């Protein structure tokens, strides 16, 4: 599903964001990427989404080589991804349901199915009663959950969650982590970046990657 070989990322201003990242992520895996701010977590997710391209090394996501000359194909590849952005990126002036539906309209599904799946996704995140509320009227935690609903309603092969617990209190953060891990199935890989290592204990299932200054410094397999 994801295969990175010696991937490095250098920005045009000369800043090195990632150095020689090599990893393999299979369908059904949950991967937590932790590390302090500036360690390269978000940069790595940007590579996976095709927002940035590797400066060197090779990266394959969902069978597609991620390189600048493949930009048009990568754009289509994003339809198989369910991103949860750090700053949510919900569309203002629209309801929670409209936001979820908007992320699915171009997937080629029948309208009825789009609305059914969107309602199911909102129910999964516990927001079925707020589906007709405008997103600007929702609380921080609710907005976060709408963003997750938008990602999962698309039934993606790859869920990418960038700091999904940022700015949440411990209880809400744990709820979000539980929610994300509950989405695990044999086809979907889930990648979660977080600097809140206290939310990941030994009972947490999945792979843990610790990043520092653009490199993976250690990784643990199986139960974290």
């Amino acid at each position, binding site marked *: 599903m994801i295969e990175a070989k010696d991937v490095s990322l250098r920005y045009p201003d000369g800043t090195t964001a990632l150095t020689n990242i090599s990893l393999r992520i299979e369908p059904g895996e949950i991967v937590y990427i932790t590390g302090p701010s500036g360690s390269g977590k978000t940069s790595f997710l940007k590579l996976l989404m095709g927002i940035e391209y590797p400066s060197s090394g090779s990266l394959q996501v969902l069978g597609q080589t991620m390189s600048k000359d493949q930009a048009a194909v990568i754009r289509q590849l*994003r*339809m198989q*991804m369910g991103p949860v952005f750090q700053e949510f990126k*919900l569309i203002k002036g629209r309801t929670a349901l409209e936001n979820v539906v*908007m992320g699915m309209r171009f997937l080629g599904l029948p309208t009825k199915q789009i609305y059914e799946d969107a309602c199911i996704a909102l129910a999964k995140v516990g927001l079925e009663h707020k589906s007709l509320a405008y997103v600007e009227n929702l609380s921080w935690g609710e907005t976060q959950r709408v963003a997750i609903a938008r990602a999962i309603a698309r039934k993606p092969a790859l869920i990418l969650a960038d700091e999904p617990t940022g700015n949440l209190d411990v209880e809400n953060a744990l709820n979000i982590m539980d929610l994300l891990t509950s989405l695990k199935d044999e086809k979907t890989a889930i990648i979660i970046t977080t600097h809140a290592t206290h939310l990941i204990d030994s009972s947490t299932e999945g792979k843990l990657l610790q990043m520092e200054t653009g490199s993976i410094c250690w990784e643990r397999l199986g139960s974290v």
Partner: protein
Amino acid sequence: MTNLLHNIGYFFREAKTIVRLNLLSNMVSLISTGLIFFILAMVVAGWWISIDVIEVIQGEAEINVYFDESLNAADLQDLIKGIGSIEGVREVRLVDEKEAYARMEEILGEEARVLEFFEDNPFNPFIEVKIHLEQITSILEKLTSTQDVAYVRDNQEILERLRSLSRVLEFSGYLAAVAVGISTLVIVSHMIRLEIYNNREQINTLRLLGAPESFIGLPFLIVGILLTLSGGLVAASMSHLVLNQIYAQMAGPLPFIPLPPFAAFARKLAALIILLSIGLGLTGSLVGLSSEKGN
């Protein structure tokens, strides 16, 4: 394509939301577009009326051919027939002495008393030749070389001026229409770019979710067309009212100016402005969208 058709209702709802969320800015855009289309409508109306007037005047363009008075009736008929067959001649008619006298009386009005000093009718019969103005030179060449033609009064200088005026009017009409058309295009494309800028976060999010450019762009295209169409409708209504006033004003002091019939003229103008507003809205929106692609 099927995907776009399935979402057609969504695109219109989204266009409505885009307008609603930036209502003030869109109202200003609508008023600006309405005003610029109104200016275009007035320029086109002035142009069309001028051309119509010139055409009517051109229709009156005529040459008087004086002939050898010793010609018998049969030869005169042959001459008239010969002139009628010259290319560019629309109508040929014999004006006899009596008609020539009556015409002069009409022209002189109260001063016609001066004609009473003549013992005999001082006017000669002539052949009145109505022509297509653009062919005046070749017609004159042929007439002067025709046997039995004694003298040709051509009013060429006046007719040439008329022809130049017609050319200038036509050219300035095209120029004004093109200038206003380009301005509209620039304003509309800028308006769309502004809409895109105002909604850049939404566009960016949809791109990150993998939405195709056509899916992202269509609501903006609809907004552009709806705004310019509304502007066109406002302009068509305003120009209808203004033209109605102008017709009413001109009917009094300037009744001799042959204006085209109002109802048909206003309908034609409204149809043109509405079609142009759709066309320019579509083009301007496409220009705006393509210039913002990849930003």
